[in-house]
């Protein structure tokens, strides 16, 4: 054992009171730091699990014409998202990008529902190809009533969170098509007036658009769902089949894209002389006839094209991107944006935090607050330790002066002080870290849950699940090392000023 280390070790025992004060501060500081870091890691992990893996993916493609990035929760207004103009070309980029594991094109926006009394309700819809949605976010939703709509089927999955407020606005109680009314799920006022309850299994809605160029469409409710995590937040969104969304918002649909024109039709549409459109009768000869037709025949003639077109051919205003494991979202975003710019596609990739706007900002703020709290604790600890060590140095001036007088260099005296502080840090800090890990596991085991949205962000989900990782341990050691180093700096300066003469002057 080195001489300086030996003296330092014994001095800790000799000055038990001071050592205990410093030790307790280090213990409490590292304990809180460990729990705080565990909370932050838990929050980040929870965010990743509950937002990235269940709802947004790592990155989101939006149109370059979109002014603000908060295209999801943040942009819940009537102003629709800009349609991605070059989706076909962007799709080629996404499919060829080796950093991307999967992607899901989607549409997001508001629709209005008007009841018989002209009372208006609204809901946010996420229009998706259900097969691709389930492949991209397999654990995202739980069907609580009815069933999900099938691929190619028109259908709406109502969120449990929306069902009640929707009833409050338009007094429609939505149940899935073909399902019996479950009275136990009704709100109290609906139960009290069952005779007048308006139960619906489909909904006529109209896309919200500033251009007022939307249309009414009727969509059957196939099921009721809830999101598996952060349901209070994501529950604002109901899922709808992509074609219904497109029609409601007057987007180009997959069916539109699938229309095959004959050579004559193509030539006619290409003409610059509009008179030609009405000049001949040949073009519509097969449709316009002098024979009368039945209503059924007319309905069949004008019904929607179904099934035999590619849903992916229509319009989108979003695309969720899931990156391969271990890929940095920042690096991937930079790379993909580079390709988009290079090809002049007028689309851009944004992070999930930007996309969820206020939610992402709040997560960053909560994390910053926790970090600030930890820094504050360490700052206070540092000041107290610094003061205690400086006092200890001054009290031992005569002893340290004697050591200098009989030939000890400044470095030796300093190494003694550093050893003393390092020993205290190692022992009490280590104890604090171990206790912190125990507290983290106890908190995790306690399964504390909340329905409060803000607390859900702090928890990273509905249940408080702090986690302690290897990098948290290294971060803890680093923070402890920094505190030890900074706490001992001023006492070392004090010690450095002690001269051999102090050995006799203080006698």
């Amino acid at each position, binding site marked *: 054992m080195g*001489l300086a280390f*030996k*003296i330092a070790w*014994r*001095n800790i*025992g*000799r000055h038990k009171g001071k050592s205990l004060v410093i030790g307790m501060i280090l213990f409490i500081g590292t304990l809180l730091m460990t729990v705080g870091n565990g909370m932050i890691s838990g929050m980040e992990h929870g965010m990743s699990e509950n937002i990235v893996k269940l709802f947004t993916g790592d990155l989101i493609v939006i149109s370059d014409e979109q002014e603000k990035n908060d295209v999801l929760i943040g942009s819940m207004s009537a102003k629709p998202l800009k349609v991605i103009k070059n989706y076909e070309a962007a799709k080629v980029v996404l499919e060829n990008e080796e950093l991307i594991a999967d992607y899901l094109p989607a549409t997001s926006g508001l629709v209005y529902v008007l009841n018989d009394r002209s009372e208006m309700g609204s809901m946010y819809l996420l229009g998706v190809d259900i097969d691709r949605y389930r492949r991209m976010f397999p654990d995202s939703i739980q069907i609580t009533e009815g069933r999900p709509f099938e691929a190619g089927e028109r259908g709406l999955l109502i969120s449990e969170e929306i069902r009640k407020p929707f009833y409050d606005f338009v007094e429609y109680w939505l149940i899935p098509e073909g399902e019996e009314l479950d009275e136990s799920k009704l709100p109290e006022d609906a139960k009290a007036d069952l005779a007048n309850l308006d139960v619906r299994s489909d909904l006529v809605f109209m896309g919200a658009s500033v251009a007022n160029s939307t249309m009414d469409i009727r969509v059957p409710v196939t099921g009721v769902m809830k999101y598996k995590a952060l349901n209070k937040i994501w529950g604002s969104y109901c899922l709808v089949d992509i074609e219904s969304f497109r029609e409601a918002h007057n987007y180009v649909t997959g069916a539109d894209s699938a229309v095959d024109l004959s050579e004559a039709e193509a030539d006619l549409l290409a003409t610059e002389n509009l008179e030609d459109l009405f000049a001949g009768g040949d073009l519509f000869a097969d449709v316009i006839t002098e024979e009368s037709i039945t209503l059924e025949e007319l309905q069949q003639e004008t019904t929607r094209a179904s099934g035999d077109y590619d849903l992916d051919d229509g319009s989108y205003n979003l695309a969720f991107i899931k990156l391969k494991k271990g890929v940095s979202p920042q690096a991937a975003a930079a790379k993909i944006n580079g390709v988009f710019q290079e090809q002049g596609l007028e689309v851009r990739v944004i992070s999930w935090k930007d996309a969820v706007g206020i939610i992402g900002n709040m997560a960053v703020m909560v994390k910053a607050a926790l970090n600030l709290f930890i820094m504050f604790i360490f700052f206070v600890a540092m000041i107290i330790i610094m003061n205690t060590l400086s006092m200890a140095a001054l009290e031992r001036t*005569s*002893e340290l002066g*004697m*050591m*200098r*007088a*009989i*030939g*000890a*260099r400044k470095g*030796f005296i300093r190494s003694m002080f550093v050893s003393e502080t390092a020993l205290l840090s190692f022992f009490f800090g280590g104890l604090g870290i171990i206790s912190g890990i125990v507290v983290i596991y106890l908190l995790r085991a306690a399964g504390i849950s909340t329905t409060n949205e803000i607390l859900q962000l702090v928890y990273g989900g509905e249940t408080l699940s702090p986690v302690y990782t290897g990098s948290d341990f290294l971060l803890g050691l680093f923070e402890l090392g920094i505190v030890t180093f900074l706490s001992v700096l001023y006492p070392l300066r004090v010690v450095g000023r002690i*001269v*051999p*003469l102090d*050995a*006799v002057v203080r*006698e």
Partner: protein
Amino acid sequence: MNVIEIQGLIKDYPLGKTTVHALRGIDFSVEEGAFLSIVGPSGSGKTTLLNIIGCIDQPTAGQVKIQNQEISALKEKEITDLRLHKIGFIFQSFNLIPVLNVRENVEFPLLLMKNKRTAEVNARVEQLIEAVGLRDYIEHKPAELSGGQRQRVAIARALVGNPDIVLADEPTANLDSETSDSILQLMKELNEVEKTTFIFSTHDPEVLKYAAKIVKIRDGMLVEQE
């Protein structure tokens, strides 16, 4: 051969608006192996003179040579090494390291000299502990020793590195007369055995009977050499 040579030594201490003239121009030399006592009343400058000779204080003016080496020309680290290798100190209040036992206190300077072999250190430490009569107290901490025993430890520590000079500032001031006699007797014996130069300050006339040479100072000036 002179181990210490002092010429025109002046030491002033600023004290507020006035200046205290602690040493007012002292000239004297000390021969190798001497057992010299610096005597004078309190405030005469004895301690200041010893501190400057021991390189723990610096003169305002004048020259101090230790083994023909002018100490004012040395850098801080060189002065520290000079104190470690050539000078031993015995303090009035013993100044032992409280957390180390007798053996560890004595071997402390040797451990600061990094190139010493363990066997060599152990032999020298045991030899000196034996010489100062503390074999039975080797594992005792300073708090478990009497004043006289502590000063014996300090003497052993001062001599352990084979210094050329041992400086003792009023080494018996905190001891009773019987213990003082035994300490001075021990110093005298070690001076003869180790051939180390001893310089000690005192204002006790009883102590003077042990000194081979006496330097008397008063008001910072040398008044007599015997």
